[in-house]
């Protein structure tokens, strides 16, 4: 395998994995639900994105043709992930989950 491609693949893998982890760290350590909501829905998105990039590169290189199948994963995830986040935010607001005291503005009543 071409070392440049291999480097890129490795980099994307590490990038993706790192973002996956960072998102999950956010989920684990941020202090209120609304804040935690940001971790996964973003970092994980790029986490998956990084992996997909790695995969695209890797398989395209292996096959020596463009392999774009994985793009669909990103497409679907980008369509669906905001829905989860939105629905969970609504649920949290409905339940009146506590937000950090210094949060500006206020959630809406459901």
């Amino acid at each position, binding site marked *: 395998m071409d070392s440049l491609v291999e480097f890129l693949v490795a980099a994307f893998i590490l990038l993706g994995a790192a973002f996956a982890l960072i998102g999950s760290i956010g989920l684990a350590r941020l202090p209120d639900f609304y804040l935690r909501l940001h971790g996964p829905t973003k*970092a994980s998105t790029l986490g998956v994105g990084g992996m997909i990039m790695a995969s695209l590169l890797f398989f395209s290189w292996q096959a020596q043709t463009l392999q774009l199948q994985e793009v669909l994963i990103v497409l679907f995830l980008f369509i669906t992930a905001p829905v989860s986040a939105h629905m969970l935010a609504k649920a949290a607001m409905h339940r009146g989950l506590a937000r950090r005291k210094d949060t*500006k503005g206020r959630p809406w009543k459901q």
Partner: protein
Amino acid sequence: MIRILPFPLLSLLLWLAWMLLNGFSWGHALLGLLLALLLPLATRPFWPNVPRLRNLPRLLRFLALVHWDIVVANLTVALLILRSPRRLRPAFVELPLALTDDFAITVLMSTISLTPGTVSADVSEDRATLLIHVLDVDDPEALVAEIKQRYERPLKEIFEC
């Protein structure tokens, strides 16, 4: 034309998806075409209000912008998360909507959620205001302005004008 191809954008999307899934061959191109025509027709009843695509180039530019924003903001958010959470300045921000089309509003909300640091928490019943939760914001007004400028306006052009 509308009868056969009620949702050209969707059909295109489906055809592209089919080709992505199967890789290129003439056979699949044909089969994909068939599906791209049939599936929207079959699911026609589920589309009471057809979103109309008015500006394809604008859409492509918009998508590129969003992707770029996602990448950039991801880094920012990563730093925010890894730093002490105490330094975050979270806020619920209300964004008055200029968009009226449900589909366009949804795309805007998705975009907001996908770009780091913001989550669309809710939309008012009258579709006039959006509630956004922000991870770290200094000036909510500025953020609202930026979102309107960066995302809402292009979307209005793409779907509504």
